[in-house]
């Protein structure tokens, strides 16, 4: 292997190991002894407590700026500000809701998970667990995986609600009555939009959980090791989530023509 190809080989190796970890996590999640119930609840509350405030602030700010004021500016030139509701279905529900939820959860909860597992790794607690006959994947990774999946799916709904609130705020900034906004919003919104948004976001949670757990459990290198693991974990999570969303929305638009119709 030539030196130039080594980074490429490294990337493929890491992706492969993460896939193996995903499959191991799924198998140990369904295989009978279920010792992770208490940890699951604790992790769920932990992620929720860390994420709710950054998520609400972030989605409101992003939706007020990007689709809200920019689109309202151009729509007001046409005198068609009531169309903002239909636009917000496309942007806030299909795109920004899941994306910002994933970014915030990766940045807030994912980093905390990597720091936690990395700390246990370099204190050799994970090895001690294995000596005691406790499977670290089953007892540590599975509850975080399931908790993050459930939390991101549910937080996505809050992200969509805050996004629509930002749309309403943009309408109010332009001194518009809200009837037109709600009329185009509800005629354009479909059930497909909602379930695809929530499903997509659940899968983002799974990606973030696997990447962050893997990076935490493979942390090494003394003092700088945990910090470096967190750094790599969050970069890989973000790139994976963005790429995955592009693939999913390409497939979704191509397979659900009702999303492309005008109403």
């Amino acid at each position, binding site marked *: 292997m030539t030196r130039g190809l080594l980074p490429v080989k490294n990337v493929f190796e890491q992706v492969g190991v993460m896939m193996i970890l995903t499959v191991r996590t799924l198998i140990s999640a369904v295989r009978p002894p279920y010792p992770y119930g208490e940890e699951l609840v604790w992790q769920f509350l932990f992620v929720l407590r860390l994420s709710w405030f950054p998520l609400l602030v972030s989605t409101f700010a992003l939706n007020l700026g990007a689709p809200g004021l920019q689109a309202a500016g151009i729509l007001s030139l046409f005198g068609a500000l009531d169309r903002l509701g239909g636009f917000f279905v496309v942007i806030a529900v299909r795109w920004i809701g899941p994306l910002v939820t994933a970014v915030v959860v990766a940045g807030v909860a994912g980093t905390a998970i990597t720091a936690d597992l990395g700390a246990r790794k370099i204190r050799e607690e994970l090895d001690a667990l294995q000596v005691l006959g406790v499977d670290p994947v089953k007892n540590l990774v599975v509850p975080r995986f399931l908790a993050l999946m459930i939390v991101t799916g549910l937080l996505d709904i809050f992200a969509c609600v805050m996004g629509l609130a930002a749309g309403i705020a943009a309408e109010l900034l332009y001194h518009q009555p809200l009837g037109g906004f709600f009329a185009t919003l509800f005629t354009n919104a479909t059930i497909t939009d909602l379930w695809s948004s929530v499903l997509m976001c659940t899968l983002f949670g799974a990606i973030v959980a696997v990447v962050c757990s893997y990076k935490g459990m493979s942390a090494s290198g003394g003092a700088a090791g945990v*910090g470096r693991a967190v750094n790599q974990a969050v970069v890989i999570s973000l790139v994976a989530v963005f790429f995955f969303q592009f693939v999913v929305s390409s497939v979704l638009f191509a397979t659900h023509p009702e999303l492309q119709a005008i109403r």
Partner: protein
Amino acid sequence: MIGWLEIPRGWLDSFGEIGRFGLRVAGLVYSGRVFRFFGESLRQAGILIFGSALIIWAFVFILGLQCGLQGAYFIRSIGAPSQAGVFSAYCDLREGLPYAFGYILAAKVGTGIVAEIGAMRISDEVDALEVMGIQPMTFLCATRLLGAWIALPFLYLVGIVIIYVASYISVVNQVGDVSSGGYLLIFWMYQSPPDLIFSLIKGMVMATVIVLVGCYYGYTASGGPVGVGTATAKSMVFNIVAVHIIGMLGTVIFWGANPRAPIGG
């Protein structure tokens, strides 16, 4: 309920601390004291270019594809597929690129700085610098800020080229409702040089805040290797929210009163 309100209150606290720290570091750059270590600043700029440029551009490329795809399908749904350039021009230059740049800088550069300076802090290297007569805040933080100001505007400008190419690929080649010439006509019509400057200002304010936050959390890290990991995680939380708020304020200030479109009165 007290427990749930602790987080916003802690935020206000750390916001004030970071503001004071950031002003001190920016003062060190502004007063020119950092130029004693200009070589170190250039080295930090070089690390940014070689270590982070490719990942920033890859991330920006994916966001450009997504901007083009969402825009093309939305414009098709209102029955004007030839106008896809309006959406991509707004999404790429005004909103998408600053946010993508902010996210990936926070993830790659911000947390990287925390991990690096934090490791120096807990192995007492920062104190050693002080004993040697080198001001650690100037040598570690101000040089990184100056390095970011040297390198990042150029990475941002190249990122604009990359996000434009990505949107072109997804609108014209992937969805294919509009011809190449028709797309580019509308696309270039809906942007102007001031938009580029505003977008660059937005991106650079985000970059400055991210570097300062990274320096703050690294400089004040404590509690062993675990403490560095926790500080890294905390810096990411702060940066995510800061990026969104700066993005919103930038939009309100630059395009809030005037949409700067080539139509209307």
